[in-house]
């Protein structure tokens, strides 16, 4: 079906356009209010559906255009006010959008369509069009829909059950059920005629009772195994961004020609011109860098948009009333960061819905409005993007977390710890305070993964919570993964780079404030706080743990105070050098990952400098502070 060489490209264009169309349809459907007929929105949805149908027809994806035709018909009736916009209708259309997404995935993976699902849904749409009331998600498609040949399946030959005595009972199962059935190997073997390579819709839905469920699964399995095709991802860029890039390239060319004349002749009088030229080159380069990065920037709306649907579906299934508020959707961030932040965000949103926002009864009892508020916001702050997920739910139970932590030995019985640190405990692997594990969350897996994912992106996450009033998760991320704001620090002869995001402050060391506690662990009294400190030279010299530092040696040295996972530490360095943006080069490209390092970069003088991975470094150096027996061997 997709064997042609040229098909690849065509398929890709079709997929991209259709995926955009489906997004338009989905967001439009979510905007629609039952009972009202917002013509503009319906028209938007209709247009999107129409182009998918047209595209399907043009590019030869008949199944897609046939299916979309029915969706379009429903929309057309809504548009011409022949049909009311109902909650059920919206749900049915949303399911159709999901189904079309599934078809797009199949096209992408070059696998077979999930025919039972498509036909079942199509039957429901046809039924609705015939004026019947839609039976909902789990209801079986009307039997006549299976028996009556439909216009879309004419190319599929029907199997005659009469010729095979094995087929005794014919049952019809809804597609939703079939999808979940355990796997089976063969479709063909169980159908009435083993030699028949094409399996018709009838055999899929109506076969012998014992094999009906596994059969449908085989279709699913086939799809999953093939996997997606390896085509480079593309990005849609606003023409303005490209224009500004071109303008800057033009300016660069002018600067180059201005500097180029010094190649021929140069005398001392030209020195100021040369200096001007170099200054111009510097600003050109910076602007060009920014403009080039802008091309990779996408609004966070792309990641936020899916939550409208997610929150709608989840809050319905949990019987909660939740209002989702999205702020700062136009805030832009790098495409790669955007793609990777999706899953952690989904997790946090689910968490807020499941544990944060209470049920209507509990909310009313607590004197809150019945509708919970979940707010996702994004804004830029000093070269970073800050994403906040806040709810007005129950908040984190400080005492419960603390007692659980003491129970698990993470915190000592009478240890004095700040609220902030208590809240950070929820990011520990396997930590859960949920009394009951739900299918959404509460298993204690996840929050640690969320934090790890965010750290992998070079960001960090903080929690603020007030019991009874709600909690806020704040994620700080660099705008891009390719470039990082770094502080150059000198340690011996080497220069290392500490990401600025991790640095709280830097102070001159006062040796009198250094206290050595058990096993050479040094603490530094900074104002009212004792910070565990370590010499960066010791770590970078190959030692994992702390080396004893001579207090005299600390004179003239600097302490870089870093913060990670809600705790502060101090790194002793010889000197602070410039702050600059550095281009991150992964060590994995030619070597492998080295723990404690986030990568390397090339400095202005051409030398290579290593970028420190603060979270993993802190874990290596300070994680076993609470385990004296390990330190004893040091």
């Amino acid at each position, binding site marked *: 079906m997709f064997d042609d060489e040229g098909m690849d490209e065509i398929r890709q264009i079709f997929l991209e356009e259709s995926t955009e169309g489906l997004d338009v349809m989905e967001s439009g459907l979510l905007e629609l209010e039952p009972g009202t007929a917002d013509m503009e929105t319906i028209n938007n949805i209709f247009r999107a559906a129409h182009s998918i149908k047209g595209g399907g027809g043009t590019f030869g994806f008949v199944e897609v255009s046939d299916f979309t035709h029915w969706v379009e018909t429903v929309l057309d009736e809504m548009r011409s006010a022949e049909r009311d916009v109902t909650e059920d209708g919206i749900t049915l259309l949303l399911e159709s959008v999901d189904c079309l997404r599934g078809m797009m995935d199949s096209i992408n993976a070059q696998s077979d369509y999930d025919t039972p699902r498509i036909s079942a849904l199509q039957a429901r749409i046809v039924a609705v069009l015939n004026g019947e009331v839609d039976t909902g998600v789990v209801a079986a498609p009307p039997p006549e829909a299976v028996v009556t040949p439909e216009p879309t399946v004419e190319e599929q030959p029907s199997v005659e059950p009469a010729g095979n005595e094995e087929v005794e009972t014919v049952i019809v199962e809804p597609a939703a059920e079939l999808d979940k059935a355990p796997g089976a190997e063969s479709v063909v073997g169980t159908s009435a005629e083993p030699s028949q390579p094409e399996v018709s819709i009838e055999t899929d839905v109506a076969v012998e009772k014992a094999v009906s469920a596994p059969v449908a699964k085989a279709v699913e399995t086939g799809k999953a195994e093939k996997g997606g095709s390896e085509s480079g991802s593309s990005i849609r860029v606003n023409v303005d961004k490209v224009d500004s890039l071109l303008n800057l390239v033009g300016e660069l060319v002018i600067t180059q020609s201005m500097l180029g004349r010094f190649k021929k002749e140069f005398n001392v009088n030209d020195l100021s011109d040369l200096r001007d030229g170099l200054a111009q080159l510097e600003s050109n380069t910076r602007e060009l860098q920014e403009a080039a990065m802008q091309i990779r920037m996408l609004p966070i709306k792309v990641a936020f948009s899916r939550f409208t649907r997610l929150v709608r579906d989840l809050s319905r299934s949990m019987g909660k009333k939740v209002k989702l508020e999205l702020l700062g959707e136009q805030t832009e961030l790098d495409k790669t960061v955007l793609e990777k932040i999706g899953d952690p965000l989904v997790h946090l949103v689910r968490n807020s819905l499941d544990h944060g926002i209470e049920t209507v009864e509990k909310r009313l009892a607590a004197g809150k409005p019945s509708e919970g508020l979940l707010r996702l916001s994004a804004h830029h702050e000093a070269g970073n993007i800050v994403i906040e997920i806040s709810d007005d739910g129950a908040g984190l139970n400080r005492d419960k977390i603390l007692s659980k932590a003491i129970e698990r030995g993470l915190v000592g019985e009478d240890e004095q710890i700040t609220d902030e640190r208590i809240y950070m405990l929820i990011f520990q692997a396997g930590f859960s305070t949920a009394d009951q594990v739900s299918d959404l969350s509460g298993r204690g897996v996840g929050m640690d993964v969320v934090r790890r994912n965010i750290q992998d992106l070079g960001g960090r996450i903080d929690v603020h919570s007030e019991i009874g009033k709600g909690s806020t998760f704040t994620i700080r991320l660099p705008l891009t993964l390719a470039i990082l704001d770094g502080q150059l620090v000198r340690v011996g002869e*080497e220069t290392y780079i500490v990401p600025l995001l991790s640095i709280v402050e830097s102070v001159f060391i006062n040796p009198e404030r250094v206290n050595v506690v058990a096993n050479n662990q040094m603490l530094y009294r900074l104002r009212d706080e004792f910070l565990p400190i370590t010499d960066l030279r010791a*770590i*970078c*010299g*190959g*030692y*994992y*743990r702390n080396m004893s530092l001579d207090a005299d040696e600390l004179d003239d040295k600097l302490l870089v105070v870093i913060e990670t996972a809600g705790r502060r530490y101090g790194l002793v360095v010889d000197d602070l050098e410039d702050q600059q943006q550095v281009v991150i*080069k992964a*060590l*994995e*490209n*030619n*070597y*492998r990952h*080295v*723990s*404690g*390092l986030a990568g*390397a970069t*090339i400095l202005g003088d*051409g*030398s*290579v*400098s*290593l970028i420190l991975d603060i979270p993993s470094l802190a874990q290596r150096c300070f994680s076993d502070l609470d385990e004296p027996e390990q330190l004893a*061997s*040091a």
Partner: protein
Amino acid sequence: MNKEQAQLDGGIDLNPDALQFLTFILNGEEYGVDILKVQGIQGWSKVTPIPNTPDFMLGVINLRGAVVPIVDLRKRFQLDIVDYGPTTVVIVVKVTGDDGERVVGMVVDAVSEVYNVNARDIKPSPSFSGSISTEYIRGLSMIENKMVILLEIDSLVNAGVLDMVPGELVV
């Protein structure tokens, strides 16, 4: 037709010039590297050491904008350490491994020659105790009455160098 294929076809090389080896000297022995794997030869330059790596991993250098690790083959095969002299060079090779291609520099005593070697003249290597373990050796060849040890550079660099993790760490 690639070399591997030529060898599979009973060692008969249809193109007598197909195999070319760049040879280098290490501890008085001459080793050959498939020239198609060689990216270039560099003089010795300062490296940036990487913490928590084996001692033979000298560090990384900037090679035309790429961060390239440099390995000392003497240290890797536990030979006597000699000071880097004027002939000490870094051979930069591009090897293929499970995770794709990598560019790595190897410090050797000196670069020697480029030889054409006919595939059928490559003799399987007997177990012998050269400086480099036999598992990274493709075979031996007599060239101009000298024995040249031809290396399996992909496995030498991948399994023998890059995948090695530091041993017991100094605590």
